[in-house]
């Protein structure tokens, strides 16, 4: 489901942000992201990456300038209309922000419940997605009892469960080893291939160079856009990509259960990102 290329999914115009009376964290930031695009958001820590993401997922309002999301000017949007927009944005928070008193299942189910999905739907989709990320045997576990990598997968499952049009991830590879990091990035690529616009904030220059997607670079509050050498596949016609995903689907169905503790099997699952179509 690829929207019109011309209509940006996120548009910033001369956006400035300051906290209280402090200096401007972001200065005259302007850019537009098109549906299906894949961007890295880079910059030193403290450059304003998280602030920029917060502006996009509507946790902050800009001090000046205009932001539009899905073609709607945020400043002109009544407060009541914001929740449905937030539901179209999936966020993988840097510190996961899982609810510790809820099971993995309930954490992932939250976005669907908030959107008043039917109980059976919730049951079906959450079970499928958790199985797909290798947490089939941990559905009832509470986040504190899970490992960092498992928590991260719960957080990602929660971000993608309601098939967001826009996926934001704040340092998703920050807390995990390189191998896991690439696995996760691969998952995001798979989602992007299906039409989700992706923005990943990272400080890993290695990751950015290896994948070669376009970059939004923040330095001292100024943003510059560096075009990528790779076109995200989400922007191109999807037809030629279908085979890969379909092939992988069978493999996971065999390997998914009981393999959560085996890194090799886990990697396969992420590499092929099979079954994405099944739950999405």
């Amino acid at each position, binding site marked *: 489901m690829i929207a019109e290329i011309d209509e940006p999914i996120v548009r910033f115009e001369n956006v400035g942000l300051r906290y209280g009376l402090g200096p401007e964290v972001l200065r005259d930031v302007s850019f537009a992201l098109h549906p299906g695009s894949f961007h890295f958001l880079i910059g030193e820590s403290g450059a304003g990456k998280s602030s920029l993401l917060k502006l996009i*997922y*509507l*946790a*902050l*309002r800009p001090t000046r300038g205009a932001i539009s999301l899905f073609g709607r000017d945020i400043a002109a949007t009544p*407060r*009541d209309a*914001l*929740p*449905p*927009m*937030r*539901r179209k944005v999936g*966020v993988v928070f840097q510190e996961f*922000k899982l*609810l510790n*008193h*809820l099971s993995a299942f*309930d954490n992932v189910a*939250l*976005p669907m*419940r*908030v*959107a*008043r999905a039917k*109980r059976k739907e919730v049951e079906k989709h959450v079970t499928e997605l958790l199985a797909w990320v290798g947490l089939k045997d941990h559905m009832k576990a509470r986040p504190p009892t899970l490992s960092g990598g498992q928590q991260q997968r719960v957080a990602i499952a*929660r971000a993608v469960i309601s098939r967001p049009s826009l996926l934001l991830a704040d340092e998703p590879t920050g807390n995990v080893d390189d191998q896991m990091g690439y696995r996760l990035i691969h998952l995001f690529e798979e989602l992007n291939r299906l039409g989700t616009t992706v923005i990943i904030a990272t400080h890993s220059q290695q990751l950015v160079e290896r994948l070669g997607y376009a970059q939004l670079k923040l330095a001292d509050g100024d943003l510059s856009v560096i075009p990528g050498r790779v076109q995200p596949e989400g922007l191109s016609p999807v037809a030629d990509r279908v085979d890969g995903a379909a092939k992988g689907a069978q493999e996971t169905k065999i390997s998914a259960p009981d393999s959560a503790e085996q890194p090799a099997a886990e990697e396969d699952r992420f590499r092929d990102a099979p079954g994405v179509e099944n739950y999405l």
Partner: protein
Amino acid sequence: MILASRSDLPLDRDEHSRFLPWLIAFMVFLSILAVAGMLMLYATASRWDAGVRGTFTVQVVPTEDAAADEARLNEVLTVLATAPEIARYDALDESRLMRLLEPWLGAGAERGDLPLPRLIDVELKQGTDLTAANLGQRLSGRVKGVTIDDHRVWLDRLVRMIETFEALALVVLLFIVLATVGTVVFTTRTGLAIHREAIEVLHLIGAHDNYIARQFARRALGLGVLGGLLGLGLALPTLWMLAYLAASLDERLLPDIGFGLWHWGLLVALPVSVALIAMTTAKVTVLRNLARML
């Protein structure tokens, strides 16, 4: 609402709201006592009112001459006997009069020691509009020194007193409501602070304010109902005890409560109202708080 009692926030594990049911129980207890007292006063007043309405006390003021007084009394009684509006009349005899005065004069007082008026209880037929003034006119033509008391002054005072108590009870109720609202606001705010991070997540995931507020409202309703039942459980035995005391005491002092179904219904409605107040307060508090978020 649809999702029964499932909650995304662990509100039922909050330590700080544990005291709420007890506080609400206390409030419900007080409100039931206040309202029961009000109903009792009201019942008493109407009983007294009904007791003296349509009755007069005719007083034949005494003079030096006892024989003449007796003649005047008979004259009055003849007038009363011929009045078509009067259902019954009864001249109090001397011994009864002395008994009434006994508390002041002592048991040994003699009739002759002091001039006593003669009193006649008069009971009107229902639906007549004979006033004390009318009857006075009729009597004054034939007998001198007769006064008629329709108890208006005494009744008016009684009514004023009862109205004061009712106003007091209403003030007590108002305070109870304010205290309940204040406590629930405080408890809810604490809950909001404790669960700030979880609420933020729900908010960012796209939960409407109502979705979050409903969880707090449901919790407050639960605690309110529990508190209401506790309060009712405390108040009912107290009322029964009062009723028992009233029945065993001089019944003219404290009439037995004699509540009808309507009264009990009103008393049971109190805990229900307090629980609903708690729920609404929690909901409004959360909504107002969330409105500050983007």
